[in-house]
Every structure is written in structure tokens, then in C-alpha cells.
């Protein structure tokens, strides 16, 4: 069964450093999403991406965040200058028809 994959599974970085989180969505999907989950809290929407552009973003997704689909398979989330409060699980999701979103296993980001 096809699934969303994410790398790395864990990332530790120093405050102020740039990180890139990578995702490979399910191959025939067209809609891509990033969510995050701070420890013990709800899963929160960050951004949706369709047709090579951002279609929706939350107030969390400020100028420090960017997304890219550099080739036909990868979907990346970049945080330019990480802050302590960026520590969270980051989930990538994809969907074929804009409804059922399938989530990856997540990247646990720890900012020190």
C-alpha cells in the first residue's frame, strides 16, 4: 500500500539554524500539506500546496517558513532561522482529491 514518507525521523538543531524537512507524498496525489504537533497539543495546519503554489497557509506559517516541490516526488518544508518554539512533530500529508489526507510518520524537530 502506498504511503507518505518523511526524512529525517528526528532532527536536532541549534536555534537560528536552517532546517529542511523532506517528504515524499503518495505518487499520484496532487495536494500536499504540512502540519505540526507540539508535544501534548493538537495537530495544527501549517500550509497546503497545489499546482506548484501555496493555496492556503495559517498564521503560524510566517516568513521563516517556506515550501517547495523541487522535483516530481519531493515536497520540502524549510525553516530559515529556527526558534525554540519550533520544536514539534512535523507531519506531511497528501491527498488525491483534496479530501482524504494521508499522513506521513513525521519528523521530530528539537531546537536547542
Amino acid at each position: 500500500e502506498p504511503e507518505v514518507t518523511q526524512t529525517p525521523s528526528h532532527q536536532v538543531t541549534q536555534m537560528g539554524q536552517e532546517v529542511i524537512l523532506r517528504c515524499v507524498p503518495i505518487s499520484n496525489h496532487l495536494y500536499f500539506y504540512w502540519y505540526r504537533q507540539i508535544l501534548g497539543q493538537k495537530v495544527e495546519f501549517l500550509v497546503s500546496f497545489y499546482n506548484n503554489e501555496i493555496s492556503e497557509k495559517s498564521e503560524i506559517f510566517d516568513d521563516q517558513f517556506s515550501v517547495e516541490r523541487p522535483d516530481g516526488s519531493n515536497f520540502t518544508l524549510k525553516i530559515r532561522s529556527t526558534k525554540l518554539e519550533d520544536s514539534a512533530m512535523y507531519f506531511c500529508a497528501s491527498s488525491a482529491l483534496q479530501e482524504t489526507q494521508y499522513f506521513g510518520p513525521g519528523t521530530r524537530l528539537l531546537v536547542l
Partner: protein
Amino acid sequence: GESVGLHLPTLSVQEGDNSIINCAYSNSASDYFIWYKQESGKGPQFIIDIRSNMDKRQGQRVTVLLNKTVKHLSLQIAATQPGDSAVYFCAAGYRSNDYKLSFGAGTTVTVRA
């Protein structure tokens, strides 16, 4: 915006019994609802979804009920098994915002042997 909340943060159920997890949403524009299961250290796993033009949908051992009048949905798990122990999230979305999902806080289900 959408606010989604779960009624109980924890649920303990005897193996073999049925489980019911309840969820409320606030935005009457929400037209798509989905339940996810999350095991420790893993991402949310799709269980079942329902559109607002339906009030019930059944899957394998699971049933989702939607009551749009009171903005409430529930997930019923039949014959709960130890492998059902996890955190369960409901989420809501609507077409005009690309179905970005608003998640509830999660109910931790523990199955007693």
C-alpha cells in the same frame, strides 16, 4: 475559523466491548469530517471519513455518525481489541479552504484485557 473539540480526553474500555468517542465542531460551514488514529511515535492514520450530505458511514468495525444539527460526530469501534489502543482525533474541513483540517485535541483509548 473552526474549533474542534473532543468530549473526553481519555477512555478506558474492556476488550470486546464497543467504544464510542465523541467530538464537537463549531463551524457550520464544515462539510467534511475525518477520524484519525495515532499510535505512539507515528503519524495520524486514516480510519474513516464522512461528508456533510451523510449522517452515517460504516467501515470495518468502525462507524461514524454525524449530527449536523448539534454539530457533533462520533466514532464507534465494535468489539474493541488491544490493537485499538491509541489516541483518536477527529478533524473537520470544508471545500472553500482546500479542506485544511482543524483537529480536535485527541482522546486516548486504553483497552483493558
